[in-house]
């Protein structure tokens, strides 16, 4: 159907509509949150834990790196995939993990059809994905990731374990608050994803099960970087 014809049908339907409350617009806003940073961090941790994400506090890069290594050590293989180093809050993460004998898989997916599938199948062997965050939301315990260059979607999606590196200055009180302060976030990349806990389902008799198609474990390492 032609666009003009389609829209014409819609507008003539609106012409004789009877929609309640169509004219009133609400100007009231939710009260802005004035919480201080420590309260925000505590709230974020509380909510993230409530949705079964595991949180780790790191006072600086080095502590964060140690936590990453510990989490990687729990794995049966040494493979991981991640965002580009320049997009991560731990400096030179790739190099530092290389020297500790961990193997980073290239996660740029080729555009060619057969190559693409081949790359996917290879990446599926990897059990840990490491990403940064673009923001976090305290009142829901969510992390927000953009798929900008260097920040692949698959790192937070394909592996069974997702390690997200978050800095304390990235935490916002609420989603509305975040969108108001970072309106361009919705345009920056082809995918803005708000992640609230590990993948789950309750389809079978309402019993909660983690790790259906996305990661069943979500570790959030919160790095203290107030003065960044």
């Amino acid at each position, binding site marked *: *159907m032609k*666009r003009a014809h*389609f*829209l014409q*049908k*819609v*507008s*003539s339907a*609106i*012409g*004789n509509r009877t*929609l309640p*409350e*169509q004219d009133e*617009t609400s100007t*009231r806003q*939710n009260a802005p949150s004035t919480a201080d940073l420590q309260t925000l961090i505590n709230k974020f941790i509380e909510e993230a834990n409530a949705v079964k994400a595991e949180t780790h506090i790191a006072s600086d890069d080095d502590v964060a790196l140690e936590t990453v290594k510990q989490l990687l050590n729990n794995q049966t293989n040494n493979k991981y995939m991640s965002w580009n180093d320049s997009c991560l809050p731990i400096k030179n993460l790739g190099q530092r993990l290389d020297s500790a004998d961990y193997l980073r898989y290239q*996660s740029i*997916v080729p*555009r060619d*059809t057969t190559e693409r*599938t081949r790359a996917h*199948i290879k990446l*599926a062997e990897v059990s840990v994905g490491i990403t940064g965050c673009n923001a976090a939301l305290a*009142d*829901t315990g969510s992390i927000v990731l953009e*798929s*900008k*260059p260097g*920040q*692949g*979607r*698959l790192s937070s*999606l394909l592996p069974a374990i997702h390690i997200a590196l978050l800095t304390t200055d990235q935490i916002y009180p609420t*989603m*509305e608050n975040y*969108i108001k302060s970072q*309106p361009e976030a*919705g345009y920056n*990349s*082809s*995918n803005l*994803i*708000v*992640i*609230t*806990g*590990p*993948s*789950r*389902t*309750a*389809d*079978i*008799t309402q*019993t909660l099960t983690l790790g*259906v*198609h*996305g*990661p069943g474990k979500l570790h959030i390492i919160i790095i203290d970087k107030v003065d960044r």
Partner: protein
Amino acid sequence: MAVTELSFYDRISDALAKPEGQLAIAAGARAKYDNRARAMSEFPNMEFTRDRARRIRAQTLSQLDKFLAEFADNVEALGGHIFWAKDAQECNQYINEIARAKNVQLVAKAKSMLTEEIFLNKSLEDSGIDVVETDLGEFIVQLNNDKPSHIIAPILHMTREDVGNVFKEKLNVPFSDDPATLNAIARAHMREIFLKADMGISGVNFGVSESGAICLVTNEGNGRLISTAPRIHVAVMGMERLVPTLADLSIMLQLLARSATGQKLSVYSNILCGPRRKNEYDGPEELHIVILDNGRSKILGSTLSEILYCIRCGACLNACPVFHSIGGHAYGSVYPGPVGSVLSPLLFGEPWNPLPHASSLCGACKEVCPVDIDLPGLLLKSRSQQILEGKSPLWMRLSQWIYAITSCNPILFRLALRSGQVVSRILANDGWFTTLPGPLQGWSIHRDFPALAKKSFRQLWDKPSQD
């Protein structure tokens, strides 16, 4: 939608004859109802937010043509394709054409009631394309050749033994009724499909006109996988599913999650803004968004247009005592429960006319609806419309006609009253009928019907009693 062979009443009898299914449905729906109630009571400014959400929907629909145009312009500017589909046939044909042109063999699908509405799977399968449902519940429905019984929880009607048996039979695995084991089997089975699929198909929870983004909400992560791994992503969107801005979206996402499952936010609120961009690591090379009317513009112009505010959270199903008893399948529509009883006759026509009558109008649905749709009011309007159009059943028209004549004529009215009193005196037992005659018998199996008083109000008025 195809007319099912059984009548609504036959389907109800069928559902009532399956006590295990009935128990599973009632327990599941009640658990969801409680989760919602808890999540909503913890929501700061709940009534205010609900009111705001309602206004967002009202504003969107009152200028839908403008918002649709803005949305489409933005999608196209991002390199996405828009197709305007008048009905199911145009939509399915378009998607088939892309599949053929791009040599698509395997499609991975996320849960979408809209694609169920238009029988998209069947249309693709008829062209020899493999379509796999990837939502766990929908996957089980597909394996079992069944139909979803709830818009959020497709296998609400199944027990865990049922699921174990389906897996054992269809996937050749040892029987287990442990949800975690069953989940692991499904995860392993589905991996390959995500990685190899040529095309991902999804619905759209919300389109954002100001940016041209679409939002897919899932808990499992399948919505993310099918919109990332396959080279083509096709999203089918009901034309009413827009919100003007990203800020509006954030309100809707919170209400949707709390109302549907009692979560503060669903695990993945996935906002997709065009296909993969230059220098991005992954994502689909092509994005097609089909904007589908399929009867919606007609509803928009009708007195029942408020039903288009619906954000498909399923809360009204979970609250409905009729749904608890008869379950989703009895409605014979992809949209069961209160929302389905209003929508189905509008979308699918006359065979679904009995649905709005199956309600006691208790109002539980309106109370839980996150956009405060006056569902009982719409059910009443839908009934009265059927009567005004002369589409109600013969017995109803006949009895209404007799009632109208009798109550317009004082002599007839008094005569009817008197004969009622006589019948009462002969058949009633201590002021109650324990069984009613003929077709009314069913009603009196579990209850008694009060007999007419010895003296009517008029008689008392004319001649006040002496004692």
